[in-house]
């Protein structure tokens, strides 16, 4: 078969279809409103994890600052919702009605200029995409043009996450500080707090995630995806084949950032508030671990990994809160030492062969991207 390694071949289609059925049919059928809303929250993290597969898994760029992007999206959406909730009507007991309550508490009497655009929903949505992209571009240009990579990039992005947290908490008059932006009510007049709204938002979230997964697969299966892998292996060779490596790194970093920001915005909608506790070092690293548990090379694995870790976290922390941290720590170590390709690797090594045998599905077709990725994973497993 000399067909191009096409985006969404049969195998991908089946896998994505399965995920779609799980998300859109199985979960809503099995889970009550409360649990479904929890799943919605987990899925917002999966946006970040999918971005990390492209950025870290394929491109080899480990960002420990994805929380910053998550925050840019989450706070963008929260600012819009907060302004809508802070109508003059709702805030008439304040000394300055019409501005968010936390501004009033901090003696701010006028809405800051950078809040103004968030009066408009279309503009908010646009900014949720554009600001992270721009931020990623600035950071990426500065670092990748100077060949900052690997460990150094990870540590610098981690410092950015720390700075962002201190800044958000310190500038509480403008950001709500450590409390975050809370008490959000309506989206363009639609009450997002009701159970029916949460139900609808779950589906919006799930479908958006499926779109992102599809787009990520498109990127992976395009030549750009292969260049990312090539870059991870032999950066210089790519450079001396006439590619501007930095531009590709910037692109994939921005893309992962935008994915994270969309996840952040969906988080705000599903959870009903945004808080600096999702910005800092710890959440940023946790998002990396979701990706690692799923398998850093597998886009669908990232979604399942996120769900698995969070399900475990919720159920373990409900029954044994002390054990949870030990479990999480152990998971980190196990994923690194024993299962470097995470759930996707386990699936590929132990489950897939049986299925293949049963279905007599020929996965030897070398232009089949799923098989390629699997092979890449096998070859890449020990080395960075």
């Amino acid at each position, binding site marked *: 078969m000399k067909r191009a390694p096409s985006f969404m071949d049969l195998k991908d289609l089946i896998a994505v279809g399965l995920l779609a059925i799980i998300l859109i049919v199985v979960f809503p059928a099995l889970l009550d409103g409360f649990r479904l809303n*929890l799943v919605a929250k987990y899925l917002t993290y999966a946006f970040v994890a999918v971005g990390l597969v492209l950025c870290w898994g394929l491109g080899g760029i480990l960002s420990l600052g994805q929380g910053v992007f998550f925050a840019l999206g989450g706070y963008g959406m929260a600012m819009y919702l907060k302004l809508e909730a802070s109508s003059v009507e709702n805030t008439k007991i304040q000394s300055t009605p019409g501005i968010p309550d936390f501004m009033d508490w901090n003696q701010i009497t006028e809405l800051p200029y950078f809040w103004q655009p968030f009066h408009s929903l279309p503009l908010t949505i646009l900014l949720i995409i554009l600001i992270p992209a721009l931020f990623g571009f600035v950071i990426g240009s500065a670092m990748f043009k100077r060949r900052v990579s690997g460990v150094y990039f990870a540590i610098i992005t981690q410092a950015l996450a720390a700075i962002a947290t201190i800044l958000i*908490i*310190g500038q509480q008059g403008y950001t709500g500080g*450590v409390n975050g932006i809370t*008490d959000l009510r309506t989206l363009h007049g639609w009450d997002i707090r009701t159970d029916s709204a949460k139900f609808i938002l779950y589906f919006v979230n799930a479908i958006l995630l499926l779109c992102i997964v599809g787009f990520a697969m498109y990127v992976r299966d395009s030549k750009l995806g292969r260049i990312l892998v090539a870059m991870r292996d032999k950066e210089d060779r790519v450079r001396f084949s006439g590619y501007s490596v930095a531009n590709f790194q910037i692109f994939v970093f921005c893309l992962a950032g935008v994915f994270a920001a969309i996840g952040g915005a969906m988080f705000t909608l599903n959870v009903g*508030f945004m808080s600096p506790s999702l910005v800092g070092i710890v959440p940023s690293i946790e998002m990396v671990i979701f990706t690692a548990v799923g398998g850093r090379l597998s886009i669908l694995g990232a979604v399942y990994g996120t769900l698995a870790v969070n399900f475990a976290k919720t159920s373990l922390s409900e029954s044994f809160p*002390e054990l949870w941290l030990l479990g999480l720590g152990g998971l980190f170590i196990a994923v690194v030492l024993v299962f470097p390709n995470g759930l996707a690797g386990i699936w590929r090594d132990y489950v897939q062969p049986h299925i293949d045998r049963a279905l007599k599905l020929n996965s030897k077709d070398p232009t089949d991207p799923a098989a390629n990725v699997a092979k890449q994973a096998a070859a890449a497993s020990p080395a960075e």
Partner: protein
Amino acid sequence: MAGPDDQLQSRLRRQLLMGIAAAPLAGLFPKVAFADTPATSAVNTTGLAVTDTEVTVGILHSVTGTMAISETGSIQAEKLAISQINEMGGVLGRKIKFVQEDGASDWPTFAEKAKKLLVQDKVAAIMGCWTSASRKAVLPVIEQYNGMLYYPTFYEGLEQSKNVIYTGQEATQQILAGLNWVVKEKGAKTFFFIGSDYIWPRTSNKIARKHIENFMKGTKVVGEEYFPLGHTQFNSVINKLKLTKPDVIFTDVVGGSNVAFYKQLKAAGINLEKQTLMTISVTEDEIDGIGGDNIAGAYACMKYFQSLDNPNNKEFVAAFKKMWGEKTVIGDVTQAAYLGPWLWKMTVEKAGSFDIDKIAAASPGIEFTKAPEGYVKIHENHHLWSRTRVGLAQKDGQFKVVYESPDLIEPNPFPKGYQ
């Protein structure tokens, strides 16, 4: 036991109602108990987790993460109160069962767990939260699903909800009496504020500043500094203290930063016996980490100290230590957390129902005469009337009470003139 008088009263009531002397046996005689125990259908019309013998409440604090340090005491106090109430026969004849959830020092987790407690466990009340941030995260959930939260921490005010009873002090209650005292007793003219960088210290300092600048004569604030949570280097601000030589250092630094701050203050030669320092954030709990030697001589301004000399408190401290060990200490928030289950019990009994709306309506006016801090009473605004005290830190980690406000101070979460 916390309330022998209460116990006595309730025994008397039971004896009157049932003609049975042995209260603890009540549970063994369901038929008889029925006379004391109103039908579940009557006391629970909204589907809360109330059965004929049990009622479920939630405890929602951080067991893990950075806030576990502070919240442990609150959990202990709430469990103590619940076990005491159960020993006395429970609430409306029903034993209290609790479901404990871990907020993990993470505000979204608090919201998630609060929702779980209300939606899945259908708890009749939640004792919980510590930081303002966790309360702010939980508040919309509690209001949406119509729950009842008993919140123990002294906090910044600017909030009032039908669904929350604030058992700690709001900022004006805590601060103003202390400032008045320090100006009067120490002749203080100049103040330097040092706080952690988040809403409670900033709001508290704002109120303190307004009071100093607008409501007192000849006093001023000569410095105001904030540090990120967890900051451990205070030498620069200590130099500023030496430069400005304030009469009073007024601090609301929280958590582990306190340890660094007081150790460095002492090392820099600032002797708290000579330099007046007033804190609104250091309780006996924090002194455990700071070390009594390092903070002896500082004044703390709050409503409760473990050393309070009254019979209620003596029994409370004894019961607490019996349950949790001799070495445990009890701070302001721990005591406030202890009030939660009791206030809820009394409110339920007054309302004759577990229904949230009825409890919310019945809360104002509830008095607790047996509170370790002395008499408290729930205000219309769901905060407590309480006294404010100033304690002088001792080397052994306890406070010596040097001042107590003569009257109960009215809670005023939206203070006019302090905004």
